[in-house]
């Protein structure tokens, strides 16, 4: 008979558990549980008082149901009642329920605390332990407040039983960790330290954990623990394998206590007292000696227990880092484990050696194991062991073995697990940089990285190689040659194209003398990759091309051809389009001198922290957002990842490579150098006055935006008269719109972007987008002069009752606009209901002391809020008929002002906002459209028909909407477009 039969004592519970196990489906289980819950509920609510046994049984069933994953919302009171039973089995179930289903119901907490208090005072060690375990398991602040003062007393009381002391020590530890403020240090602390001398090893085992925790916050108060711990350790270590009887585990005396004592000692520096220190060193040597003795048992438990102590001993030796003899012995011991048949030992040896590698005394000893570690990297089956091997190689790397280690890591990378590739890439990149003696090796290594594991080469890594090549002119020619060769591979990684593009754009001239890498060859090689690359890479390549125009004038025509191609100039991606437009203009407008200045080689990067190191640290740092995050990595592993120079010798010799590692973290700007220069230049180009100071020039982004619609020189806007030199108008009274305002407005009826206004002083560009009844408009005010505009203030005004029809929110802009600079204003627009007149834009500023004022019509017309509607011919005619009241229709017959081109007309109608419906009008020459005007208050359905008569050069335009003024207004707006 087993000592414990199934569910003995509680037959009902065993039956219930059997039932649940026999359930064939989840539904059956839930049904059975609900039946049981109903049963228990009725028992708890019944008139008959339950006896303790039944109560225990039902509470235990509830607990089981909860552990199966179901919610329990009753029974807490019955569980609390069990706490005051004087039977152990009932009390135990009560405490278990409370510990598992912690409930911060204040009423219950008071009752629970009361029961705990009684049990703590009961002098019954079994009950006291139950109460202490409950506190230790729950560890809530309320419990801390109630018992933090009592527990130290129980812990050090002379008459407490050993088991109670054990529980009290760990209970106190839990309360201290949860709320340290509630556990005041007192005279009891000294007596706690003396628990290290307790006769009962179990008490010592529990007390060491408590002391280890407390001494971290108050090292001085607990300093006396050092000598006590050393003597206790010494007694254990020197005892024979059977001396400690109960505490001997597979012939190893008190392994867990030994480990705990060794960890306690790691909270302090080496003992100052020579005698204590001598005794401790003796202990450590004994442990190392025992490792060499033949095992007393073949069982893995024996060797594990023994080695647990050994590894902790080595940790302490490394922590002291002051005994060269012990460090080297530790290293040799670990070296033996590197080839042990137990995977666990190989793993732990690699891990432990990693920390040894950072000690000056053992670094060289660690290095002797390089071949074994490389072999581990190649042959270990467990990825985590290979990972440790890679860590160790990284830690033992110095100038003497860097080439070997880097090449082994590169080889490993080809087959490495995906999970660790990025980390290996970072490590290789750091080592290659740190120990580079000649930089051609560095460049080769990084290009190899990209070739082997391009996907895992993060931006930091390839930015870094560009920084280093830019900063070191002795490697630039080699870099250009190597990337050129690398790019010749039929399939090369996009990161290679980026690095290649950047380097050739900067230093391609260094290899241009060789006919095999002449400028046209370089260009066509790069351009052969262009179409397969992402937008970012293509943008980078465009910058390379403009740099080529500067470096190699003979490529200018070819490159201009590429830039001019529709696929660039009208690329759907704004960035690419912009670069193509700007670079094309730059290459055709600027003189060679200007070009050479703008596209000059990049200046060296300022030297700061390596971005790659920072990234590696981040990768190894604690993850984010999980409840487990408060765990910390041990300091030693942080050191490794921090890439501390492993040997003092390399630290002491200042080397150029070490300096380079300090290069700055910031990546090269995403938009390469040429673009910012180009931005400035373009401002210069279209300003009439003296060149703008580049420092005051616009930021590249603003400059780009202003160039979205290049100014059209033939535009009539240049004819604008100078603003009237009137006195400063008051803020409210604005002048009438300039005479051309309507004409300017008409230009924007069918388009959203362009130059709204331009004179000798000022250019105003517009970019806008509309969706439903909402719109956003960007206005760009460019100062074309070299003099600052002051009191610059553009405002939007709603004449008449437009306020109720259209809401326009504007953001203020800076009151000063520097010469050559551009400011941007954002307008948020909401169409509330249909409207006929556009808002006015009033711009005022002072130029050279003279006030300037200008009023324009803001290009917001009702058709901007069109939503195109597709419909079949039948539907169209049906609706057309429905809108047949005379006031719903507006019609205009007018003469064509522009050549009658069907494609242009189509584009204009689409720009106007309606859908174009094919196959509706029986006459294919005619255009038919439909759409809905979206306003906040209402929607207006619109149908339109445009009938061109080419012979007469006339149009007939018919609009039908549900609102008379809208029909007329739309008709007028649209009629002016043809």
């Amino acid at each position, binding site marked *: 008979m087993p000592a414990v039969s199934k569910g003995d004592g509680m037959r009902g519970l065993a039956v219930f558990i059997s039932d649940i196990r026999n359930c064939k489906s989840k539904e059956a289980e839930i049904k059975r549980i609900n039946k049981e819950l109903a049963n228990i509920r009725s028992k708890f609510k019944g008139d008959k008082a339950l006896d303790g046994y039944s109560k225990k049984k039902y509470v235990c069933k509830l607990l089981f149901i909860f552990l199966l994953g179901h919610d329990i919302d009753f029974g807490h009171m019955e569980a609390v009642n069990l706490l005051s039973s004087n039977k152990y089995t009932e009390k135990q179930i009560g405490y278990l329920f409370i510990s598992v289903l912690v409930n911060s119901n204040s009423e219950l907490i008071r009752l629970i605390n009361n029961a705990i208090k009684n049990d703590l005072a009961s002098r019954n060690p079994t009950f006291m332990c139950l109460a202490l375990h409950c506190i230790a398991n729950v560890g809530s602040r309320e419990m801390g407040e109630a018992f933090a003062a009592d527990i130290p007393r129980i812990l050090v009381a002379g008459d407490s039983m050993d088991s109670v002391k054990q529980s009290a020590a760990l209970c106190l530890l839990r309360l201290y960790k949860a709320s340290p403020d509630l556990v005041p240090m007192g005279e009891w602390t000294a007596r706690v330290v003396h628990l290290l001398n307790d006769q009962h090893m179990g008490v010592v085992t529990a007390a060491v954990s408590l002391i280890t925790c407390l001494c971290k916050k108050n090292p001085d108060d607990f300093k006396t623990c050092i000598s006590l711990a050393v003597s206790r350790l010494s007694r254990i270590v020197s005892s024979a394998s059977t001396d400690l009887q109960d505490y001997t585990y597979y012939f190893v005396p008190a392994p867990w206590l030994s480990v705990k004592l060794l960890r306690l000692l790691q909270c302090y520096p080496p003992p100052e007292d020579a005698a204590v220190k001598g005794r401790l060193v003796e202990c450590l040597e004994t442990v190392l000696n025992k490792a060499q003795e033949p095992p007393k048992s073949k069982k893995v438990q024996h060797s594990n227990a023994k080695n647990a102590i050994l590894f902790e001993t080595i940790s302490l030796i490394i922590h002291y880092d002051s005994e060269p003899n012990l460090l080297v012995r530790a290293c040799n011991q670990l070296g033996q484990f590197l080839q042990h048949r137990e995977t666990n030992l190989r793993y732990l040896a690699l891990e432990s050696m990693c920390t040894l590698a950072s000690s000056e005394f053992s670094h060289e000893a660690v290095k002797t194991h390089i071949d074994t570690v490389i072999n581990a990297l190649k042959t270990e089956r467990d990825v985590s062991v290979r990972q440790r091997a890679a860590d160790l190689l990284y830690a033992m790397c110095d100038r003497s073995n860097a080439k070997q280690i880097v090449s082994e890591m590169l080889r490993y990378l080809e087959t490495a697990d995906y999970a660790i590739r990025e980390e290996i890439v970072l490590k290789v990149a750091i080592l290659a940089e740190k120990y580079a003696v000649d930089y051609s090796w560095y460049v080769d290594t990084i290009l190899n990285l990209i070739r082997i594991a391009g996907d895992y080469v993060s931006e930091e890594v390839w930015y870094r190689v560009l920084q280093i090549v830019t900063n070191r002119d002795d490697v630039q020619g080699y870099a250009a040659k190597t990337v050129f060769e690398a790019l010749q591979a039929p399939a090369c990684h996009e990161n290679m194209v980026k690095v290649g593009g950047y380097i050739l754009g900067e230093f391609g001239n260094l290899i241009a003398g060789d006919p095999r890498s002449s400028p046209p060859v370089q260009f066509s090689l790069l351009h052969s990759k262009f179409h397969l690359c992402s937008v970012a890479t293509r943008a980078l390549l465009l910058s390379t091309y403009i740099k080529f125009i500067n470096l190699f004038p003979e490529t200018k025509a070819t490159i201009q051809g590429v830039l001019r191609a529709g696929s660039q100039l009208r690329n759907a991606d704004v960035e690419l389009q912009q670069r193509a437009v700007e670079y094309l203009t730059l290459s055709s407008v600027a003189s060679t001198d200007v070009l050479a200045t703008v596209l000059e080689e990049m200046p060296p990067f300022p030297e700061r922290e390596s971005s790659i190191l920072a990234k590696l640290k981040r990768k190894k740092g604690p*993850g984010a957002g999980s409840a487990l995050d408060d765990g910390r990595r041990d300091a030693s592993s942080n050191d490794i990842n921090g890439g501390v120079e492993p040997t003092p010798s390399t630290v002491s010799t200042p080397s150029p490579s070490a300096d380079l590692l300090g290069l700055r973290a910031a990546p090269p700007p995403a938009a390469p150098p040429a673009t910012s220069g180009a931005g400035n230049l373009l401002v210069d180009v279209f300003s009439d006055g003296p060149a703008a100071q580049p420092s005051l020039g616009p930021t590249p982004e603003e400059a780009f935006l202003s160039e979205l619609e290049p100014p059209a020189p033939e535009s009539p806007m240049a004819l604008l008269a100078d603003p009237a030199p009137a006195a400063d108008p008051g803020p409210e009274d604005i002048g009438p719109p300039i005479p051309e305002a309507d004409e300017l407005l008409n230009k924007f009826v069918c388009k959203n972007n362009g130059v709204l206004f331009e004179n000798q002083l000022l250019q105003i560009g517009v970019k806008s987008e509309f969706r439903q009844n909402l719109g956003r408009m960007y206005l760009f005010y460019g100062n074309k002069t070299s003099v600052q505009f002051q009191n610059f203030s553009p405002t939007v005004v709603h004449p008449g009752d437009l306020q109720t029809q259209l809401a326009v929110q504007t953001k203020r802009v800076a009151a000063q606009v520097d010469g050559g600079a551009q400011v941007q204003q954002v307008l948020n627009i909401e169409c509330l209901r249909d409207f006929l007149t556009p808002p006015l834009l009033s711009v005022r500023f002072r130029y050279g002391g003279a006030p300037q004022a200008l009023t324009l019509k803001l290009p917001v017309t009702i058709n901007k809020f069109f939503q195109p509607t597709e419909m079949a011919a039948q539907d169209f005619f049906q609706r057309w008929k429905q809108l047949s009241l005379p006031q719903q229709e507006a019609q205009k017959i007018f003469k064509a002002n522009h050549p009658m081109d069907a494609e242009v007309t189509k584009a204009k109608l689409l720009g106007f906002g309606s859908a174009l419906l094919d196959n509706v009008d029986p006459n294919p020459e005619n255009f038919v459209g439909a759409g809905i005007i979206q306003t906040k208050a209402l929607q207006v359905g619109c149908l339109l028909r445009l009938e061109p008569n080419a012979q007469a050069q006339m149009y007939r335009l018919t609009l039908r909407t549900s609102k008379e003024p809208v029909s007329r207004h739309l008709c007028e707006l649209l009629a002016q477009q043809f």
Partner: protein
Amino acid sequence: MIRFILIQNRAGKTRLAKWYMQFDDDEKQKLIEEVHAVVTVRDAKHTNFVEFRNFKIIYRRYAGLYFCICVDVSDNNLAYLEAIHNFVEVLNEYFHNVCELDLVFNFYKVYTVVDEMFLAGEIRETSQTKVLKQLLMLQSLE
């Protein structure tokens, strides 16, 4: 320190979950699933240690049951590996050739065994003799 102890079978059913940190119920469920996923894919040639979030799992398989202890990364792997075995030997003695069903039907007793040997995330008692003596004494109580 120990963050949690889990006993799971190969199918992922939890036979014991003892938490030494505050987690809400959803998080507990997530951890249970993650541990199962991490541990069951490993074979005998692998180490008994797995990195787990910012911690590590020390585990050992006995027949169809995985005994897993989640500890801080700086903790001593082998000491906890043997702590698992020590615990299993106590269960084996207490339940006389323990099997998975013993843990199911006597789940409330397993908690008592755990509390005798581990408390507040630390090892409380390591002597099998002492633990069993105490358990048998408790067993004799009404």
